[in-house]
């Protein structure tokens, strides 16, 4: 840590805190501007369940007190911010007495697992293919095939999800249509469960990879072309280094640097895209939780899920920023 310049660290921390604060505030303000009263929704649900509710006025008051929305706005805001920092988002209105944090805790590992795997795979494949588009020793066939594969890039993840689902699940039946694991297997540390999870995770992960690798490949192509024109690449060739060594240690190693920054910037969009994929595949992660919450008008859950995803995004950006000085020695010396 001592090798990260202090100004740089402070700068990144301020950005992290501001991001989380602004996002939390936005999530809080928007529903307050809406005319919908969450207490009435909850009451409506009770009424629907019980047939009729007699002392509606009293229950409404109690609900409001429970939800804390009978207090002045400013008090609500600070309570909310305090709660958010402790991951306390209140109680779900759809599954009423369940705390939102418990629902999120169940869903989060699924999303994290899917996300980590697919993000890492895409980043590696995308950048490698992008580099191969430029490298002079790439076989001809590859140089034609890679740009052709780019067509997938232009499709949003939900659409690729639909296509893959139709081809491999609905038509061919190779993979299950929906869910994160089979209904017949018991969740736990068993071989059956693990294979089931992998089997179910394959298509969602593939649909993310297929549509996002092109983004990295395109960016990498542009960067590689600049690196190819750099004097150090010419000198590397003049040194008689092996072409493959030049590709990895001189070209990709330098071209990848801006891609890592781009990774931090785009991470939010990628995670949001994944939420949609989860929704299509009815995968048990945050996306499905969010989608169900939207259907049920379950505001605490919507807020909680949005907040946690934004927090994840902001944290990933922060981590990438912290790692960066170790990948690019120049950053350690000149702070922007």
């Amino acid at each position: 840590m001592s090798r990260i310049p202090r100004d740089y660290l402070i700068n990144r921390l301020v950005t992290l805190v501001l991001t989380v604060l602004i996002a939390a505030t936005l999530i809080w303000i928007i529903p307050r501007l809406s005319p919908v009263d969450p207490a009435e929704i909850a009451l409506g649900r009770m009424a629907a369940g019980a047939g009729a509710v007699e002392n509606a006025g009293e229950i409404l008051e109690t609900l409001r007190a429970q939800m804390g929305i009978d207090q002045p706005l400013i008090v609500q805001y600070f309570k909310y911010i305090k709660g958010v920092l402790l991951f306390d988002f209140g109680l779900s209105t759809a599954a009423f007495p369940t705390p939102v944090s418990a629902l999120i805790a169940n869903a989060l590992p699924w999303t994290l697992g899917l996300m980590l795997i697919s993000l890492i795979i895409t980043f590696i494949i995308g950048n490698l293919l992008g580099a191969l588009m430029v490298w002079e020793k790439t076989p001809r066939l590859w140089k034609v095939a890679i740009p052709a594969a780019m067509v997938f890039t232009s499709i949003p993840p939900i659409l690729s999800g639909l296509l893959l689902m139709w081809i491999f699940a609905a038509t061919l039946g190779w993979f299950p249509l929906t869910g994160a694991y089979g209904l017949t297997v018991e969740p736990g540390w068993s071989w059956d469960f693990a294979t089931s999870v992998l089997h179910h995770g394959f298509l969602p992960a593939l649909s993310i990879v297929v549509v996002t690798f092109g983004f990295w490949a395109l960016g990498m192509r542009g960067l590689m072309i600049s690196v190819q024109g750099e004097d150090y690449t010419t000198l590397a060739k003049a040194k008689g280094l092996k072409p493959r060594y030049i590709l990895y240690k001189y070209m990709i190693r330098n071209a990848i640097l801006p891609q890592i920054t781009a990774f931090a910037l785009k991470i939010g969009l990628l995670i949001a895209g994944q939420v949609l994929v989860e929704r299509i595949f009815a995968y048990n992660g945050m996306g499905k939780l969010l989608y169900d919450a939207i259907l049920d008008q379950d505001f605490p859950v919507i807020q909680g899920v949005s907040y946690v995803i934004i927090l994840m995004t902001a944290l990933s950006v922060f981590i990438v920023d912290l790692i960066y000085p170790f990948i690019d020695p120049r950053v350690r010396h000149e702070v922007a």
Partner: protein
Amino acid sequence: MAETLQTPTRAEKRQARRLRRFDNPWLNPKLIWGVALLLGILLLGLIGRMLWNLDLVFTGSATLKLPPVGFENLRKQEGVWDFPLGTDGSGRDMLALIIIGAPNSLFVGLLASLIGMSTGIVLGFTAGFVGGRTDDVIRVLSDVMITIPPLLILVVFQASFGDVSLTMMALLIAGFVWQSPTRLIRAQVLSMKQSGYVQMARLSGASTGHIMFREMMPNLVPYLFGSFIANVTTSIVTAVGLEVLGLGPQRIPTLGRTIYEAINAGALIQNLWWWWGIPTLLLAVMFVGLLLINLGLDEVSNPRLRKLS
């Protein structure tokens, strides 16, 4: 290597064509194809409105779940020319749906991107020129906003407010697509400020306005276009994402909402591929068009790229 030996004349012809393209970067085939695809979708919307009966877009205007012409559905019904692209689960004509829906998506993308771009130009130039505190605020703000995924904030918004209009959706998305142009323009302005020709212009007594709009702006054009197109893509992806979650405009047919309904009705299991497939295909065409334009613009702004491909 082998190819040069076999057909040297062809290789040379290709070389000549490549070199010609080098001279006029705006005429590259990628750019032309991309624009053509987008214009195609616009024309589908415009001509379709004139020639097709748009009332077919209402629920129950036809037999349910009819396949496109030349196909058969699971109930052994054949497609009919009255509804050439088939009908959806509630008896709406697919052709009428896409004639109305496709231009809508493009409209949202263009409007949101236009607003985002204008904001980006204003903020980017301000940050680059004013510097100091103003620059700090704009820089940190765009750093912060760029990490917040627009989709989530919009989900919260739509879920709270219920139905929104297309324009409102575009405005909301615009709130999340000004960051990249701002950063891009700020960086370019800062580097151009040091450039010889801007210094020359200052020596020539040029006003700040002249330097911004007459000296810097023309050189920014390819970057601005590139950023604009990238933003159109992001905006459409976000809009379609919302629609697929069932959160877009409720009363206007959109491609995303059609897909939402198809998934909800189990169109995948029932093999009603045209219901979700046609809007998906149309979106894909739109995105391929945008991608091609972006690649073409890259070649304009980065001459090194032109040597390849």
